[in-house]
C-alpha cells in the first residue's frame, strides 16, 4: 500500500495534511496488525532521544523526524516502521552493498537509505544508522 501510493500518487503529498493523514492510517494499521513493530518504533524513539541533542519533529511527508544541529534532519520514520536515514554517499553505498538496507523508496540514487524496522532486534542497528547520520557532518 505504502509503495503503491508513493509510486503512483506521490503528487498527493503536496496537499496540506494529506501525508500526515496517510501516515496516521499507516501507523494505525501497524498498531492493529503488527503491535511488536510499534513497540520497536517507540523504543527507537526513546533511544534516539538519548543521543546527544537529538530531538523529534513532524516530518513534512508524514512520520516522525529525528533532528540534530548542525546536521539538520538525520532521518525519519514512517507509520509502518520504515526508517529513512541520510548518510554520506560512501556510507550509504557501503551499507547498500551489505544488503541490510534498501535504496530510498523515492530517491533510490541518493544518499538516503531505507531500513524496515520489524522488531526490537532491529533497534541497535537503527540507532547505529542514526549515529552514522550524526557523524556525517
Amino acid at each position: 500500500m505504502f509503495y503503491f501510493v508513493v509510486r503512483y500518487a506521490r503528487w498527493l503529498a503536496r496537499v496540506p495534511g494529506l501525508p500526515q493523514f496517510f501516515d496516521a492510517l499507516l501507523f494505525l494499521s501497524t498498531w492493529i496488525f503488527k503491535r511488536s513493530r510499534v513497540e520497536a518504533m517507540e523504543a527507537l524513539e526513546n533511544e534516539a532521544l538519548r543521543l546527544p541533542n537529538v530531538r523529534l519533529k513532524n516530518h513534512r511527508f508524514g512520520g516522525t523526524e529525528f533532528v540534530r544541529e548542525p546536521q539538520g534532519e538525520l532521518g525519519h520514520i514512517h507509520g509502518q516502521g520504515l526508517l529513512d536515514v541520510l548518510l554520506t554517499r560512501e556510507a550509504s553505498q557501503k551499507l547498500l552493498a551489505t544488503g541490510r538496507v534498501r535504496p530510498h523508496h523515492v530517491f533510490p540514487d541518493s544518499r538516503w537509505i531505507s531500513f524496515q524496522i520489524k522488531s526490537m532486534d532491529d533497534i541497535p542497528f537503527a540507532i547505529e544508522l542514526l549515529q552514522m547520520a550524526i557523524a556525517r557532518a
Partner: protein
Amino acid sequence: MNTESSPLPDNLPKRWPTWLIGMLMGDLVIGLLFGLSVFLQTAGSYQAILFPSFFLVPALGGIIASYFWRKLEPHAGQVVLNAFWMTLIALAGATIGFHEGIICLIIVAPIFYVMVLTGALLGRIWFRKSPPRLFINILPWMVLVLLAEPMTRSDSESVITDEIIIRAPPAKVWREVTSFPEIPTAPRFWLFSIGLPYPMATTTAGDFVNADRKCIFNHDAIFKEKVVELISNEKLTFEILESPRDPELVGHLTPHRGQFVLRRNANGTTTLVGSTWYTLHVRPLWYFDLWTQHIFRAVHMRVMQDVKRRAEL
C-alpha cells in the same frame, strides 16, 4: 502493549485524569465548532447547513487533546488508543447534542477517528518542544479559519447512475416505473438492515408533467416530488421538492432530482437506467461521496430490481 509508560503505580491516578481531560477538551472544541456553525446557519434553511470539515475539525480536536496530554509525553501507541476513546465520547455527544442517527455516526466514525489520531500524533511531537503559548495564540485563528471554511465552498451537483437489463419490452417496464406498490422483499443492503430508511413504494397523481409523486421510504419517510419530464415508454424525470426530516437524511445532502430512462435493446429486452442528482454539504467530499454513491446505488438497485421482477412476471 503496556499503555502506561510510568512504572510507578501511584502515578496512575494522575495519568488517567490527564488523558480524560485531554479527550473531553478536544471533544468540547469539536462540539463547539460544529454547534456554533449550526447555530450561525439555522437562520437559513436547515436542510442545507454547511458543516465544518470532518477532515479539519477532528484534527484540531486531536491537537488540543495532545496539548493536554503533553506532560505525559505519550507514545504513539497510547495516542492511538486514547484517540479511539475520544472518538467514542464525541460520537456519544453527537447523538445527544445533535440528534445524529446511528447510520450517520457509522459513516462519520472512520474519518473522524483517523483525523483525531492525525491531529493527536502531530500534537504529540509538536508540544514536546514548541512553547504552548504559541499554540494558544494561534488557536483562535485556527477556529476562525475552520468556521469560515464552509463559506468558501462552491457546492457542486453530483449524479449517480445505475442500469439494469429487464427481459421485457419498454412498454411493459414503463407501467412499473411511473409508480409501484410496496416492495415485498426485505432489504439486503447492510445499512438498510441497521436502520437507514429504504424505498418501499411510489405513488403518483398521474402520467403527466407537473403530477405530484411521493416516494415512500420506511420509518414514514416521504420524499415529495413533481414530474418535470415525461416521454411515455422512454423517460421520466422528477424534481425532489421536499425531503423527510429523518435524522439519518436531514442536513447532510440535498437530493435534487431523479430520472428513469428506458432503452429498447435489439434482443427485445429493455435497459432501465436510474439516476439521482444530489449536492453534498459535508466535507471531505471524496470520503462522503463514496458513502453517498454506495447508498444511492443500493436505493436504485432495490427499486430497479423490483421493477424488473414485476415487469418480467
